[in-house]
């Protein structure tokens, strides 16, 4: 089971056991990260699943679609390493991935 290292908004870190095949968002939410609201359930409509991905993991992620890019552009907290976690499928290759929950918009 791939491990996900999450840092929440209060700066605390937590390691979650992920499930491959589910999205990173589903894993974070299922792992009890309450700050991930994911209101649209992964439909790329809400941007409430915004995370920062540690640089070393960025390159290994599937490319960002135009839709994800557009939606992220609504966030005042967007950074170089911003991603919508619902658009990232979890896989064993991502074992150890480190992400930080982005601030609320």
């Amino acid at each position, binding site marked *: 089971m791939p491990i996900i290292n999450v840092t929440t908004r209060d700066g605390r870190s937590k390691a979650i056991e992920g499930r491959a095949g*589910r999205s990173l968002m*589903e894993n974070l*939410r*299922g792992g*009890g990260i*309450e700050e991930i*609201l994911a*209101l*649209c*359930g992964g*439909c*790329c*409509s*809400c941007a409430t699943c915004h995370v920062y991905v540690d640089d070393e993991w960025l390159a290994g992620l599937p490319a960002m679609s*135009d*839709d994800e890019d*557009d*939606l992220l*552009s*609504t966030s005042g907290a967007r950074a170089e390493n911003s991603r919508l976690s619902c658009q990232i499928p979890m896989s064993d290759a991502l074992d150890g991935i480190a992400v930080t929950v982005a601030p609320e918009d």
Partner: protein
Amino acid sequence: MRRRRDRQRHHRRGAQLSRFDVLIIGTGHAGVAAAIHLRQAGFAGSVALLGEETELPYERPPLSKDYLAGAKARDDFRFRSADFYAERGIELIPGERVKTVDPEARSVRCASGRTITFGELVWTAGGRARRLPGAHAIRTLADVDALKDELASASRVLIVGGGWIGLEAAAAIVKQGKKVVLAEREERLLARCSGRALSDFLAARHRAEGVDIRFGGPSPDPADFDLVIAGIGIEPEAGPLLAAGAEGGDGVAVDELGRTSLPHVWAAGDVALHCNPFGPDRPIRVESVQHATDQAACLAKAIAGDPRPYAAMPWFWSNQFDLKLQTVGLSHDHDEELVRGDPASGRFSILYRRAGKVIALDCVNMVRDYVQGRLLIERGTRVAPDRLTDPDLPLKTLVD
């Protein structure tokens, strides 16, 4: 012996007789959001989430989309794990239906006879699907499980109602190789909530995918089908509160913080009749995940001591086939509908205006307009129609 049993029963009931600082009725989108936001806002009192359903709380949108289509499993769309609620001291009370509310005693009485008292009552009981005899509805996980059981062996399916749920169900079912007839008594789809351009576009697309759409009456004879589904809207679940004297009618009236006219009683979500800052000048109900979540968050913060009027931008989505439909704003009482882009291309937007201002957009496979159109609505900018409909001008360049 008899006495002992009575005493035991009494004792058991006694153990259940309980009080919560905040008692939330309804475990849907609004109820769960209220509980989570109470804790996020630092509320330390006791919180219970009571509802009629026995399932661990789940999201409704997948019911008519990925779950019906078989692309999501039952446990793929729970809001949170059971541990999550336990860890935060949110007591889940499943399988209880509130029948009456006593605002003076600050108590609710359930169909089981159980009575619970409260400091604050949060009414997030949503709505009940209107049913047709012999037809399935799509409102709860139990509804869709029963529907899927029969669908497996059905080949001819009648869907009554051309609203969002009827259309999503038609898309999910026709893809499974079934013959689908969709009957809409109006002359167009989504007549209640969207403009004509979207109705026409969706009708054409559904027909191209094989859905047999019939407008106007009379509805086809259900006897000609193996399975009938009604997607004909909901009745807000306001009865117990109205009976207790709360103001309302088609729902429970609430103010900008989510307070009903009864002291210590709040409401949010599908059931809440409210004046939406982005809506018309009359109380309305809004049936969407955004509204349920944000209005519940608003009342939770107010209960936790941080009252701020509900002012969130409305948004909504739907998925049918490969179409991603996204709506921002509320199009009620629009007096003008502008089409931006070519519907035939499968990517376009519709802008709704009222008195010259953009109040809502429906976007089809056009996330960019959905995202940028929000600015137009927020700022209330007046822009010439020919500029709004020029797909080469990004909407964000049109706001001042």
